[in-house]
């Protein structure tokens, strides 16, 4: 067993885990963070995308022990005081989800993308979410939602002022 100390969605945890435990399984099975989903075995689908120290990662490709000392944000931690993150709002407004299975990972990746590129054009959005698969939407409304959220999150926009920005970090 190995020990992992990690902050997830603002709460500190210390747990003994099997060294082989993947971060996604730790989140789901130990912490009950079942909003983060598993869709494949090969890091292709991105359903498990979370933020590790402000950067998006596929949590199936990270060992829980690699997150030791880190801050993890999941889909369950981005709404603030009951107010949805602008990307969450935009996904609803633009009908960017159907079955909803890719949605948590897609939203987390979109937030990361907007952290790197606050005003992406269509092609930049498409390339920025290329690692997240969706089988329902054909992506068109996801692209719309990400671009709409970008406008909302622009400095000075009404939506931006009361929005948590810490999770939108990302970036090089």
């Amino acid at each position, binding site marked *: 067993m190995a020990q992992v100390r990690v902050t997830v969605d603002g709460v500190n945890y210390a747990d003994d885990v*099997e060294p082989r435990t993947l971060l996604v*399984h730790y989140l*789901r099975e130990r912490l009950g*963070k*079942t*909003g*983060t*989903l*598993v*869709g*494949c*075995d*090969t890091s*292709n*689908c991105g*359903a498990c995308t979370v933020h590790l120290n402000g950067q998006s990662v596929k949590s199936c490709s990270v060992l829980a022990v690699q997150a030791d000392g880190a801050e993890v944000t*999941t*889909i*369950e931690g981005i*709404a603030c005081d009951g107010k*949805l993150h602008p990307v*969450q709002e935009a*996904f*609803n*407004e633009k*009908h960017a*989800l*159907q*079955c*909803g*299975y*890719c*949605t*948590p990972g897609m*939203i987390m990746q979109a937030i990361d993308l907007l952290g790197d590129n606050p005003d992406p054009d*269509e092609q930049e*959005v*498409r*390339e920025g*979410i*290329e*690692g*997240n*698969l*969706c*089988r*329902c*939407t*054909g*992506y*068109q*409304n*996801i*692209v719309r939602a990400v671009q709409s959220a970008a406008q909302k999150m622009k400095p000075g926009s009404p939506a931006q002022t009361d929005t948590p920005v810490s999770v939108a970090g990302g970036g090089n």
Partner: protein
Amino acid sequence: MTTTADPTTLEFGKARTRKEDARLITGRTKFTDAINLHGMLHLHVVRSPLAHATITGVDKTAAEASPGVIGVYTAADLGVEGVGLPCAWPITPDMKSPQRPLLAHTTVHFAGEGVAVVLARSAAEARDAADLVEVDYEPLEPVLNMEDALKEGATLVHPDLGTNENATWVFDSGAAGTGSSIDEAISAAEADADSIVLKRRFIQQRLIPAFMEPRACVVDPTGEQITVWAATQVPHILRTMTTVTLGVPESKLRVIAPDVGGGFGGKIGVLPEEMLCVALAQKTGKPIKWNETRSESLLAAHHGRDQIQDITITAKRDGTVTGLDVHLLADMGAYLGLVGPGVPILGAFMFNSIYKFPALKFTCTNVFTTKTLTDAYRGAGRPEATFAIERIMDELAVELGIEPMELRKKNWITHEEFPFTTVVGLTYDSGNYEQATAQAMEAFDYAGLRREQEERRASGDKVQLGIGISTFTEMCGLAPSRVLGSLSYGAGGWEAASIRMLATGKVEVITGASAHGQGHETAFSQIVADQLGVPFEDVEVLHGDTQISPKGLDTYGSRSLVVGGIAIVKAAEKVVAKAKKIAAHLLEASEDDIEFSGGTFTVKGTDKGKAIQEIAFAAFMAHDYPEDMEPNLDADAVYDPENFSYPHGTHLAAVEIDTETGRVNLRKYVCVDDIGTVVNPLIVEGQVHGGLAQGIAQALFEEANYDDQGTLVNGTFVDYTLPSAADLPSFDTSTVSTPATSNPLGVKGVGEAGTIASTPAIVNSVIDALRHLGVTNVEMPCTSQRVWRAIQEAKGNTTQETPIDTHSPGAGLGSIDPNNPQGEVQ
């Protein structure tokens, strides 16, 4: 009396954002894999790596000694050797049906078939132990090619059946009396210098539905009823079929489909794993969970399509079509799925599409192979039919030197001719092909793109432009029960609904159509809000739990709105009729003098009235109500449609092909769909987008390949290439509406339209781009390699196809490139 609210506040047609989203965008909801119960045990399946083999021994010793393992079981250990999974569609009286076991016990028939199961305290321990189960196999010859499988002396998948032919199903318009004889049409065309007989072979490759949520179930035997949570499209059918399969009384089963992460037909099955979980829950008395890996899903969840289509069309030289002869071979895989043998038959009535063929014959032979079984995948039979007819209409246009859209116009049913009874005996109630086509051609700039195409051809541009057409129709709304009966389908096609008026004025709507992403909660709320004149927010739609929604036939075949939605309307009409009686009583008026509008019952010519919520409360209090009725507004309805619905549309694609590399770039996609009346344009647009992506994926990206040993070589998302956002453009989608006359809402269904229509539009555009170079066909998926090879071969150059079992380096579970096992640098 119609029960419409004030027209200015109608919900119908409003682009409501979805009610369902709040729990999905926050990660709050629980998909099946998040159901965890105390004492729960985890099941993992030991699967055969071989396609066809005799099982000569199973050594469980090491697995049983593995940490956390409760037990390792074969079919014999569980006493289920005699149990077979159901096929509900015996398409012919003499159809050959093999037993489809829960676990293979003497012979495995496809790679991925379960041989044993491990039960352990954790999922990880179950998977670890599964690797330790030693199964000895004596390999048998795999059966992979449908045409070879039908030859004399072929290796038999199921020797006890004496043949690899499952069934042959024929529809002949001459014999049926719905049209004339195809044999006569072909003879006449052959004898007539002014006619043409054209034959083409098309291949529908094997596809994988690839829903994003892997299949899963949890079975809890600890209550009076056994509760099954399952990632399924069909909780009601699963309940009934669990009884049929295992003998558990239906009344002792509760099936819950919580939020389900997509289905596309891929989750309509009754699974061996589900039945094993029930059997093991009964055996151990503990809750059992099964959750498949993606590789298991790609390997063992049912596949779709996989047909060889031999099509003969006859026509006059002026373009008038005179006959269509369809011969299909359809790969069933190793066993029959729940409706697998009937999937090609669902296409039988759609090959004539929107065209006025006088003669049509359809002959389909279903074939067993040692591959994963096939069953419904979005469109189920209709994409195959639409592909064949739209492809051969283009081929005919080329042969006759007629512009492809003009050829279609010459043959389609005109607006004035509806209702129109087709050569297969279906009556299309409404449609307007001229309108959808005109609108699509304008939005597409058809003439402009044709000019550009001419210019590029003339200048020998290395990037050539292709334009593809698909003017499609489909039959939706499965289905009139009598029609299903005539096709020997093992169920009806009705749908059930209930409406409960709560004491506080809120409304519960119960539907038997269980959603898995379609947005039923939103669309059905809109319908009920209008019918009852209550706020959208006050309507709660309940579904997907057989104890809450006890009656239903679930969601597939674009049926939820056109069947389930109408059942809701019928239930609402009953609620209003009951409320009207109570309103008349309370308002001391004759029932004939009561009017209902916008949620209020008023006495004609007075300002006296009561809101439906007040009536609901009065019924709850029951202090004062008419003597000849119960104090209750609730109502149930079961709706059985009289006809299918027939959405149609015109889809146009423009592709640019780099003739030096073969790369296909989808530049523009325009579609105008006539799906009748639209309840929620936002949801409709989403359904069309997603449908297009799947149809385009068949044309350009996806194929399930087997190697010569019968092993699936695309067993991960590395190799089975779903399109990503970067692979697709934005689509230009819109709708026109000729309301269906077969139902009171005028709706037609939209769930499958995009998938059915788009595949031939894309392939027609690819071939259109290359035809002047001598290319006559490119098989799907039209990958860069295939397109490049087609161009080279048209030039007379020889090419070599990369073997289909060439894995991507690093792909697969072992991360070993089998073509370079030592990992040498090449």
